């Protein structure tokens, strides 16, 4: 332990009690738990951790804890738990083994402890090896100026000429419909009227005719009346088509709508 070395170099004399107390406290606070302390003691044996003398190790640990207790240094409970267990292990190792039962033998318990220490040591070394690898941001570097915008969610707006037309007619009709609601029924061609008129005028003919040719006289001049007539005639035509009585045709958007009586066997 470096604390220990520093102490011996800096104060090369017989430690008086306070110094020893301080030394013990310092080293205890430097350990991360009893296993860490054990590992440190084991390392001082300078042999392969799986070849260490567990008995000697247990004795050193017990002596260490005993000294600390004598000096009334606060020792965390888990150090004491370990001490109790090591005392038990020591007795198992010293006393003759009882007949082989389910209990692990003293040797096996000692092996397990040595194994645990070896594992802790291995992980400590592995951690060190990991930290000395080429590390990103310390030894190797990524592109400092990435160009791919992390979240380049391109917002793309879509609209078609159709959308444009719909919007425009909506704006215009919104405006135009306003008076319609106010003007009352007098200006409206009812659906029933329009339908009756259509059926009457289509007669038995099978030629295509323009729908707006069916508007009643006088309904094709004043804008409101004209629109009402167009709308009612169109709705009536749709109704008749639904019932299979007529066919409707429109060559393209906003082109004139044509209508004819459906041929009997079409």
């Amino acid at each position, binding site marked *: 332990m470096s604390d220990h070395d520093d102490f011996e170099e800096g104060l090369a004399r017989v430690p008086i009690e306070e110094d020893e107390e301080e030394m013990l406290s310092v080293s205890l606070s430097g350990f991360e738990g009893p296993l860490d302390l054990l590992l440190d003691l084991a390392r001082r044996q300078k042999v392969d951790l799986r070849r260490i003398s567990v008995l000697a190790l247990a004795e050193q640990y017990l002596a260490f804890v005993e000294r600390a207790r004598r000096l009334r240094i606060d020792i965390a409970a888990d150090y004491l738990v370990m001490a109790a267990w090591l005392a038990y292990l020591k007795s198992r190792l010293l006393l003759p083994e009882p007949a082989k039962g389910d209990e692990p033998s003293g040797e096996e318990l000692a092996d397990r402890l040595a194994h645990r220490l070896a594992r802790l040591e291995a992980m400590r070394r592995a951690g060190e090896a990991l930290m000395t690898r080429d590390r990103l941001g310390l030894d190797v570097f990524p592109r400092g100026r990435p160009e791919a*915008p992390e979240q380049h969610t391109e917002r793309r707006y879509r609209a078609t000429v159709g959308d444009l037309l719909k919007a425009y007619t909506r704006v215009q009709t919104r*405006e135009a419909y306003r008076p319609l609601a106010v003007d009352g029924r007098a200006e409206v061609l009812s659906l029933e009227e329009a339908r009756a008129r259509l059926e009457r005028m289509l007669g038995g003919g099978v030629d295509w005719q323009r729908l707006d040719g069916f508007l009643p006289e006088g309904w094709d001049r004043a804008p409101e009346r004209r629109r009402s007539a167009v709308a009612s005639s169109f709705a009536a035509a749709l109704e008749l088509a639904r019932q299979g009585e007529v066919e409707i045709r429109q060559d393209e958007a*906003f082109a004139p709508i044509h209508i004819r009586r459906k041929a009997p066997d079409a």
Partner: protein
Amino acid sequence: MSVPAPAGGAPEETPSGEDAPRLLDTLPLEEQERMVEAVLFAASDPLRVAEIAERLPEGADVPAALAALQARYADRGFRLMRSGGSWAFRTAPELGFLMRREAVEERRLSRAAIETLAIIAYHQPVTRAEIEETRGVAVSKGTLDLLLDLDWIRIGKRRETPGRPATFVTTTAFLDHFSLDSVRDLPGLKELRSAGLLEPLPPEEAQEEPEPTQDDED
């Protein structure tokens, strides 16, 4: 294939070079080149020659290394570019399309936006006040900004009326998007009217705006 010239010109234009001392005779230029490329790769901003030199071992011939790198990467997926006297690697411009993460979020234009656009398209040049009058509601700045951002509309001439209000007109990008050769290709108002969908215009406006016209400034 045509390779666009790197922005900012050839490395020969960089300050100094010939007179750089040869303190670093032991470090081959090839090695200096590697160092400069590593430094530029990791840098978060373009670096000036002096800044690069600062990071390199003393005596490095940065301009020579830059010239070598510019030649080395002239035909690669990224280039060494100079801009404003600073150097940076940038992906080759003609490969820029690879970088676009196709997280395209398709959106429909809001009702307000499409109506505003339609009014501008059909009535251009048109003032904001006129748009508002037609829609019957105020036009938000956000709506106009969006259409301007999309580059579908732009600001046209000022109207020579009191207050000289700005007008809006559509752009060629608008025509591109809607696959129109000209705004005259928009379905005509006459067609709309004859279909009974539009009210004939009031007489005084009728002369002013018979059909949409392309603004000739475009």
